[in-house]
């Protein structure tokens, strides 16, 4: 493959992410990884549901009194929006508009970082209330499920940033286009997981 080949919007392939064999492989491989991630998160959700509100006898924290919706609502809106901004980035990627893509990726990263900041704030808040990781089976399951999601967000952010920096000077080619495409897919997947977290953990938690 030739890295120096320069593309213009006219010569840029329709599906740059699968224009090369490597791209095709990465594309399928990554989706398969997402299938495995689906099962991973399912195991975490299942455990959470089984251990919800379970703790030592006389435990004081239950989901219904712990969670506060306004913060979760804000987090949800931010993450959903970041999903849209990454779609914009991909739109410009397909149009071979590198600058616009980088700009939208930047917005996505900022939104993602805000989300992560809020999550850290939330965890910190609970810990200060006395609901620490070792408090009960419920707390362990809660932090592990939501924290694993948070770790995915963090990883996604690092991935975005690494790609943006690495390719800042090079522009788009068929070698890095699949990478941008995959991280966007990953970001959507993180959003999908969050949809279930806010539904199953927070909303269903609040209604008891």
């Amino acid at each position: 493959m030739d890295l120096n080949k320069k593309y213009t919007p006219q010569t840029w392939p329709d599906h740059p992410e699968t224009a090369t064999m490597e791209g095709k492989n990465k594309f399928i491989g990554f989706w398969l990884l997402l299938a495995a991630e689906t099962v991973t998160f399912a195991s975490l959700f299942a455990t959470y549901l089984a251990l919800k509100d379970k703790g030592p006898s006389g435990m004081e924290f239950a989901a219904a009194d712990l969670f506060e919706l306004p913060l979760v609502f804000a987090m949800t809106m931010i993450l959903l929006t970041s999903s849209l901004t990454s779609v914009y980035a991909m739109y410009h990627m397909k149009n071979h508009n590198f600058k616009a893509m980088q700009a939208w990726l930047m917005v996505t990263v900022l939104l993602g970082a805000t989300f992560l900041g809020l999550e850290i704030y939330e965890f910190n808040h609970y810990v200060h209330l006395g609901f620490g990781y070792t408090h009960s089976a419920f707390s362990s399951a809660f932090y592990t499920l939501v924290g694993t999601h948070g770790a995915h967000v963090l990883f996604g952010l690092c991935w975005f940033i690494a790609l943006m920096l690495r390719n800042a000077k090079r522009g788009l080619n068929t070698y890095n286009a699949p990478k941008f495409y995959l991280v966007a897919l990953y970001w959507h997947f993180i959003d999908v997981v969050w949809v279930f977290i806010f539904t199953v953990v927070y909303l269903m938690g609040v209604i008891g």
Partner: protein
Amino acid sequence: MAHDTHTHVRSQAEYEYVRRQRAKEMRNQLTSFAMMIFLTLIAFTTVAADFSPYLITPIILLLAAVQVVLQLYHFMHMSNKGHGMVAFFMFSGMFVAFITILALVTIVWW
């Protein structure tokens, strides 16, 4: 391994057509986004409005499912060409996910 992609240079008309298609698609994406926001709002309001849990739970789970479909099919393009195997494995994954959750919510405590 790969033989290099043959570069195809589009004519101006072709090029404009493709761009229009993409812009149209982008407008669709915006619509799905609006729907997602809307569904989320409904979910949060039903809970805030304090209906009976037996009513709310199925509704918000359904809303979540719809959102997932929107993400997968619109944002992640799972219905596009070349996604046959992808869809197969994602559905297999969801199947395993489903029975795992079913088992752990039904037969762990009894």
